[in-house]
């Protein structure tokens, strides 16, 4: 079969077009590959996004620490602090919550309380510095209270913070808090699988906690990773 190409540039024009088409297709393909569809968002992905954004509660009345704890002013230099919705849903119901004794001096960002979940101990940081003046006995008796109402009845401690030096000023609020939570959600979304996504979409929570539902083995590492703990 003879193919005589008399003009060496006969196909040059078409080739340029093909290359241009390819270069246009590359970013589209790349976005699709990375789960950020430009053309036709997959149903599950869109559902996941809807489910996750705005599903972890972030009340405006509180300020947030990147270690997933919150603080809200309780008058007279006191702050009520606790664990945020993201963390409690991620870890699930703890068997036991360990809170510091009254009078303990806490430092912002240093481990303040610990949750024992399924044999794993998670030490979580305090959102601000100060002295412990009250502990939530209800949570100590029944850790499930934390999961039921992390921002209300599930508060953990009351801290008396000095006027300056408490670190309350630099906590995340408003838009910055939303951005921070969005980033945490994105990190979680990367690990999400369709089954858990479906559960969340239905308004449920995986009983053992999201982290455990995502990965039975090594879930504590996953949780630590997502909570940005050491």
């Amino acid at each position: 079969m003879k193919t005589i190409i008399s003009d060496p540039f006969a196909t040059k024009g078409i080739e340029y077009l093909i290359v241009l088409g390819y270069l246009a297709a590359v970013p589209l393909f790349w976005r699709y590959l990375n789960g950020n569809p430009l053309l036709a968002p997959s149903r599950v992905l869109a559902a996941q996004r809807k489910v996750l954004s705005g599903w972890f509660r972030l009340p405006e009345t509180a300020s947030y620490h990147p270690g997933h704890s919150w603080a809200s002013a309780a008058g007279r230099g006191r702050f009520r602090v606790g664990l945020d919705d993201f963390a409690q849903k991620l870890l699930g119901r703890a068997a036991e919550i360990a809170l510091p004794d009254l009078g303990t001096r806490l430092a912002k960002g240093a481990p303040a309380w610990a949750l024992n979940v399924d044999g794993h101990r998670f030490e979580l940081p305090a959102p601000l510095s100060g002295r412990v003046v009250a502990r939530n006995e209800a949570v100590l008796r029944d850790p499930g209270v934390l999961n039921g109402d992390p921002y209300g009845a599930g508060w953990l401690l009351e801290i008396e913070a000095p006027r300056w030096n408490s670190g309350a000023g630099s906590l995340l609020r408003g838009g910055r808090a939303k951005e921070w939570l969005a980033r945490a959600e994105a990190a979680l979304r990367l690990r999400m699988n369709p089954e858990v996504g479906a559960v969340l979409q239905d308004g449920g929570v995986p009983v053992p906690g999201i982290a455990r539902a995502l990965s039975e083995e090594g879930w504590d590492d996953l949780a630590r990773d997502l909570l940005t703990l050491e």
Partner: protein
Amino acid sequence: MKGAAGLWRFLLSELKPKGSLFTPFNLVSVPIMIAAAVILYIRFTHGLSAVTNLSQEVPWGLWKGLNVVTGVAFAGGAYVVTFLVYVLGQKRYHSIVRITVLNGFLAYVFYAGALLLDLGRPWKVINPIIGNSFGVSSVLFLVAWHFMLYMMAAFVEFSPAVAEWLGLRRLRRTLAALTLGAVVFGVTLSMLHQSGLGALFLMAKGKIHPLWYSEFIPLHFFVSSVFAGLSLVIFEGTLSRRVFRSRMSEEHHAHHDDIVLGLSKICAATMFAYLFLKVLDLVHGQKTGLLGTPMGHWYLVEIVGFVLVPMALFTEAVRWRSLWLAKTGAILTMLGIVLNRLNVSIVGFRWTEPVRYVPTPYEVVVTLGVIFAEIWVLRWVINRMPVLSESPAWVREEAAQPAIAERVAA
């Protein structure tokens, strides 16, 4: 450091098999390897015609086409992964470097070594090496030299594991320092000889069906070696996870999913580019009209069924974080590579001849025997050296020391 006698006793003890001798794999592979040895004896005592269907029209058959050309493509995982970890600094893949490099090294030893079985006068292979006669204008000369140099580079990359196995601390430190150089060298060599294997067929213009023959064969072979190698890494990873579960370190287990999906992403992107290269090639060579012929249909089976489809599988695997999809994609990709290399070297070679080349059962047995032998050695090494398992404690201690020194100085 053990004395020489102690070392010898240690090596001998390591020859003893670990685990059961009667696994299904052993029961299949041992008879085949024995049969292969017998066939090779006949081949060397009676000439190639006694066991192969090679002819004057078709001088290269299954041994060159499958063992050498295809086997080396699959060894491509080694250069891609070492590139990712040591040049691009993607630490995520660090836990699979050793197994991949080991695989690459053994693949070259066995499959490029299988070249020797196919040579008419293997004892003369020394000629282009020692300089008795350098045919520098030959692509095969380049390929042969690169194979040898690459084996050395891959061995240097792997040697720290050997040093750890033998407990030689200072040697290990020296070898570890050579790693980046060996990796850079190895990647460069790989780029050239993967494409070189394609370039071997450039002068067979007219003998290879135009859909597979192209002046860009070297580029196509190089690009496809990227996803060929990574697919094998993905596939083998899922296998070793089961077979060598007890030997695998914690780090390995934990990062397995991330690794598989990361590699799948790279495969998907590379295959995307490869498909466009193929389209470009069809247009440039004005070959689109050939797609309607029977050979054209076969070409489409290879490209659509075994490149496009697995690319889609890899893409969805990444988006859904599905290991199952990734594994399926990997298997299809590997089949596609085998298909492509065989199409270029055998199926598409002299496709108009009335009597086509079909390998003899003996050729098939020897091909399988070589593959099984490689797997046996792989298994032996994995079960003894820190490939999948953690390095001995003294390695980590040594690694920590320089960091402490820095902190003290700071």
